[in-house]
């Protein structure tokens, strides 16, 4: 992290560029703010330490998978294996962390698995030129199967101190999220990171300009895998054990959050801050509707309508 200050001190261009990127998500930020206020009014505990901790913990895994999906969609890809990868991360964490290599060894295993799976998927999609949607669909079977092999039924254990640290009465989730966002900023400030946009929006032009298009895309898949297994580790810490199917819902929610956050399907459209806001919005929506006493039915109905609306309304504005 020591190099972050130098990234920030790069003078008169970096910050205006960042400020410009905010314009596109301004209205989204306002909506999120409105939901945050509503949430704060309904549940004043949000501003207490424990309420804040609980809230960020419920948001954290969704934020990670939204980022995992967004980075792929920015390169023009998509993954239907996010949920399975989350599950795999969770079972690996739950089976290794109590073992001889301890928490550090377990975390390393989780991270390496995520990077490896992502890189392999990326290689198949990018180098063998197969459609991402089918590759990741097949991948979801393989990854989910691996999770079932490791832990056929919920079990394993996460050391209690880690669960307490990550999912207890601490702001650890929030701090981690801040760190991850800073790391992302750092990545986006590298030539490879910024190439994501060019590789997603105009791959031919980017290639002609000397952008390592394939490398940027494979790297995106690897990072996406890492974020997904990381989310799995966190979920395992929340529940204190591993469950081989715990991640299933994250596939669809990651797409929904990314799209709510303004990420387009065609590549190169949207920003990570938008995707994060989208995941926060989704997380808030569920919580706020819960406190307003919406029945689960109404929650689902509202969620479906909001997602369609969020995608359709910009279409009309364009016409």
């Amino acid at each position, binding site marked *: 992290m020591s190099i972050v200050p130098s990234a920030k001190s790069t003078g008169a261009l970096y910050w205006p560029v960042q400020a410009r990127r905010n314009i596109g998500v301004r209205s989204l930020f306002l909506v999120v703010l409105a939901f945050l206020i509503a949430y704060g009014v309904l549940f004043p505990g949000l501003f207490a330490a424990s309420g804040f901790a609980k809230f960020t913990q419920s948001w954290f895994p969704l934020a990670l998978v939204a980022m995992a999906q967004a980075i792929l969609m920015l390169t023009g890809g*998509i993954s239907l294996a996010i949920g399975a990868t989350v599950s795999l991360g969770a079972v690996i964490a739950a089976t290794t962390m109590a073992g001889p290599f301890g928490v550090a060894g377990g975390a390393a295993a989780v991270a390496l698995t995520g990077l490896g799976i992502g890189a392999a998927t990326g290689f*198949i999609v990018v180098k*063998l*030129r*197969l*459609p991402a*949607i*089918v*590759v990741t*669909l*097949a*991948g*979801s*079977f*393989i*990854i*989910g*199967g*691996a*999770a*079932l*092999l*490791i832990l*056929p039924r919920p079990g394993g254990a996460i050391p209690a101190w880690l669960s307490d640290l990550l999912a207890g009465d601490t702001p650890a989730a929030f701090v981690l999220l801040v760190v991850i966002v800073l790391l992302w900023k750092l990545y986006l400030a590298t030539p490879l990171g910024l190439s994501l946009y060019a590789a997603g929006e105009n791959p031919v032009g980017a290639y002609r300009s000397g952008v390592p298009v394939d490398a940027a895309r494979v790297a995106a898949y690897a990072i996406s895998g890492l974020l997904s297994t990381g989310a799995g580790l966190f979920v395992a810490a929340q529940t204190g054990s591993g469950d*081989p199917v715990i991640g299933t819902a994250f596939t*669809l929610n990651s*797409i*929904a959050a990314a*799209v709510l956050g303004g990420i387009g*399907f065609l590549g190169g459209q949207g920003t990570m801050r938008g995707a994060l806001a989208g995941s926060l919005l989704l997380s808030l929506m569920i919580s706020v509707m819960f406190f307003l006493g919406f*029945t*689960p*039915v*109404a*929650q*689902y*109905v509202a*969620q*479906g*309508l909001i*997602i*369609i609306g969020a*995608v*359709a309304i910009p*279409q*009309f504005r364009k016409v």
Partner: protein
Amino acid sequence: MTAWNDSAGGKRASAILKSRPFLTLAIVAAVWIVASFVSRGFGAYGHLRYLVELGAVIGLVAAGQTFVVIAGGIDLSVAAIVTVSAISLPLLSWQADPTGLVSILAVLVLTTIIGVINGLGVALLRVHPMIMTLAMATFLQGLLIIIAGGSAVTAENPLVHWLGNARPAGIPAGIILWIATSAVVLTVMHATPFGARIFAMGANPLAASLSGVPMTSTTLAVYGISGFTAGLAGVLVLGMNGQGYVGIGDPYLLASIAAVVLGGTSILGGLGTYAGTIPGAILLVTITALITVVNASPGWRSILFGSLILGLLLLSGREQARR
């Protein structure tokens, strides 16, 4: 050089593509033969019949999915529609409907309308198919809880019961339903102008629209068909199960897409056939059964599934590089 390679590659790809239904069928046959030697009960007529009957549900869901995928879209709401059908049918019964036919028709109209709404979102609101159908699935989950309240519902419908259990001439009614549906689907897909429009739309929507293909109505029809066949699958699965519950349709989303892809239909649209999806569906249930027979764990079953799809994709990879 390039030109020569490309045209030869195009020919080879189309040759592979043409044989894909047969290739899939051959794999099914080979697997059946080998498995019946390895495991005594596997090759029994009754067992194979049971497999095809299980395949019928996937095959019906995948019929609509094949239409949608060929037209260049994807339907992620089929699982929810299957569940809607299986849950709402027991609740829709009238005294004046002793055979149960009217309630079945009512349910099919309902699921077709759901599909048409998907089509409206895709064609008129221009929402990406994945998002539109995903949102529809979320929406339907809510609807299902209203309808069923979370508990299983039992079908009292005689026709549904017959579909799930009767064996006229020794053939399960579900298989007969599947054969009849397949005949209609294959005819519509390959022997009518409507079918040709769908292929054109999936291969190049802009060129199709400039050639006069009515895009909106065709899109509505395609998603409507998907809703209809998913509804039909829901009726069948209800008959076979006796009960409908929330989540009954869940396995059929991935299965339907896998069957379509295994059958050689391009996920990018414009190329494919339901004739490949049929053996694709049987292959899926066969592998499931085989892994059960050799006592493979669910994990291995899933891994084998995925690897198989990936392996077949790699076989036909060249065709996918066209966009």
